[in-house]
């Protein structure tokens, strides 16, 4: 029987297997940030265990960081302390850190791919569930808890049971205005938020093979929102082209040899998956969420369903929406374009293209938060900054920002925010904040109109 992409990468990293138990999986690259690492450093220190492979760890500061005045000392005492600890820990153990203000600083899942740290066939972990993003390269990448961060510190390995395999195939051509974000919101709305639990997912079919790397990252990023540990897409010429020439990518002959290996990774034609779903691209429309988990999505022009269960009712009560109602024309005061789901250059190009020559509605606060310093620089270099400024959008400095509201970027109590991030949980963007997930195009259009509109009518 043939092997899946996942099998090939996994099997190449198994150091040992316990009889009837977990396997020891070797981790090529470990990414860390300020929030989930301090307790792991402490644990090792207390037990007198050294960091095994500091050269295979890269750190960034992203979750807690302010997105304005990054050159000034961080105001919040606890945040400042957490950032200071990260710097001290990295210095003490010889770990590369892209601290606040460094030209490579950014959200961990934006920074590593753009620097060429993320490469096909690798195993990558990080104490952050959206590590699944890196799967876009044909990488096994997944989020871990802090105890596991300590395990990787100590041994560059993890003890894991091999997950089951799931494949989601989407064939056909996407309609105008349907972006990668819509594809993944559509999939989750169809299969639910725990359909992937216990599985590692592969996305296959024409839609993904034609998608840009940025788009693939958006899709893989949200694999965790359907419960899957991670998602992957087979590496192809689009992948190789993206990786080529990046700061830490292999060069010259080394790169050629790597490509030859990467080409062997796609799933064999006779590989069997434990579970499969098939969707047709023509069924997908621009999407929007109405509830408090990412599976509560409907097409932009659709109606909220009328369900009876308690979770549904609780979600609608929190959002202050009625069953059966449409979201079109709902007034919106906050728009957030950012997060590791949609803060890459392509996302800002899409938003800028729509916004150009228009002005945001006076009631709207529109925050644009690039995923990294490099994205920020590119926004300027391509002249997008001027477009946004003329439209009245606020371009802030890179970081997780309002995606999880650990810093000052919070949506006020009761307010709606059309957001390109990945989670619409209660309070995710601030206590009592109401999050509506959407693509950068829908978010940009909302900012211009001051309400949710059917952007497809604009495009036609």
């Amino acid at each position, binding site marked *: 029987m043939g092997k899946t992409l996942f099998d090939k990468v996994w099997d190449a990293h198994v150091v*040992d297997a316990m009889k009837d*138990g977990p396997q020891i999986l070797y981790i090529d690259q470990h990414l860390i940030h300020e929030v989930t690492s301090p*307790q792991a450093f402490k644990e090792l220190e207390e037990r007198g265990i050294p960091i095994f492979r500091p050269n295979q760890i890269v750190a960034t500061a992203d979750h807690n960081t302010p997105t304005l005045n990054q050159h000034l000392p961080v105001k919040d005492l606890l945040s400042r302390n957490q950032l200071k600890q990260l710097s001290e820990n990295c210095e003490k153990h010889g770990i590369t850190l892209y601290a606040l203000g460094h030209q490579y600083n950014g959200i961990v899942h934006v920074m590593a791919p753009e620097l060429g740290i993320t490469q096909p066939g690798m195993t990558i972990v990080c104490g952050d569930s959206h590590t699944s993003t890196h799967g876009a390269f044909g990488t096994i990448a997944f989020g871990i*808890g802090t*105890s596991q961060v300590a395990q990787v510190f100590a041994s560059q390995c993890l003890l894991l049971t091999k997950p089951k395999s799931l494949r989601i195939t989407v064939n056909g051509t996407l309609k105008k205005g349907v972006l990668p974000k819509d594809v993944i919101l559509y999939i989750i709305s169809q299969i639910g938020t*725990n359909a992937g639990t216990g599985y590692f997912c592969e996305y296959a079919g024409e839609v993904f093979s034609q998608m840009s790397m940025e788009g693939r990252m958006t899709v893989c990023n949200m694999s965790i929102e359907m419960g899957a540990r991670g998602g992957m897409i087979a590496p192809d010429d689009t992948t190789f082209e993206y990786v080529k020439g990046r700061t830490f990518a292999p060069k010259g002959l080394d790169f050629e040899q790597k490509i030859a290996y990467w080409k062997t990774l796609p799933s064999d034609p006779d590989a069997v998956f434990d579970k499969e779903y098939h969707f047709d691209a023509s069924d997908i429309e621009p999407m929007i969420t109405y509830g408090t988990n990412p599976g509560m999505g409907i097409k932009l022009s659709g109606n909220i369903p009328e369900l009876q269960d308690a979770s549904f009712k609780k979600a609608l009560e929190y959002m202050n929406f009625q069953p059966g109602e449409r979201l079109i024309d709902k007034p919106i005061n906050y728009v957030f374009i950012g997060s590791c789901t949609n803060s890459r250059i392509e996302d800002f190009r899409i938003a800028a293209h729509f916004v150009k020559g228009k002005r945001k509605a006076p009631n709207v606060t529109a925050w644009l938060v690039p995923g990294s310093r490099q994205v920020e620089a590119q926004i300027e270099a391509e002249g997008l900054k001027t477009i946004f400024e003329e439209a009245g959008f606020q371009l802030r400095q890179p970081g997780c920002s309002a995606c999880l509201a650990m810093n000052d970027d919070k949506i006020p109590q009761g307010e709606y925010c059309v957001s390109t991030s990945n989670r619409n949980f209660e309070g995710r963007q601030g206590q009592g904040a109401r999050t509506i997930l959407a693509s950068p195009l829908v978010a940009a259009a909302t900012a211009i109109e001051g309400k949710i509109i059917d952007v497809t009518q604009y495009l036609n």
Partner: protein
Amino acid sequence: MEAFAKLTSTAIPLEIENIDTDQIIPARFLKATDKEGFGDNVFRDWRFHEDGSINNKFILNDTTYEGKILVAGNNFGCGSSREHAAWALVGYGLKVIVSSFFADIFKGNSLNNGLLPVQVSEGFLSEIFHALKKDPTTKITVDLEQQTISVEGISLNESFEIDPYKKTCMLNGYDDIDYLLSKKTQIEAFEAQKLN
């Protein structure tokens, strides 16, 4: 990590599905650099109103229910990988979470902190909720050695699954680091061969 073998306790019913780790411990409390103190803020935004006053409607504030076991709706612990969620539940004094489904990362995190996730069938879960509603003093027994959960008053009991390796760890209070460190030679050999 504290060892766990068997526990009999009253329980707190939290009949809500898809409880995500952002609810268990909101992000604004993740700024600490130790594992202690998270228990104070477990379910913070459900326990307290925005003005800081106590939300008497929330079950954790209902004095009729107490205990070391939390019984929760389907798909508990989804969302963020933050282990702070497990630290918060442990810090609050819980030893066992019962649900009909657990999110992957949360399950691993709780096992790594001596907090036992017990997955039961949908039917059994609703029986427990029912029993607790009828009598808040109902006791639940979780036996890790036997892998069983039983509820006082209803003659039902169910067995639950746990990875045999993880079971040994829980019973003895071991963690994965000890095991991985014992494999260092093999890990180094793997690295050497990978480079060639």
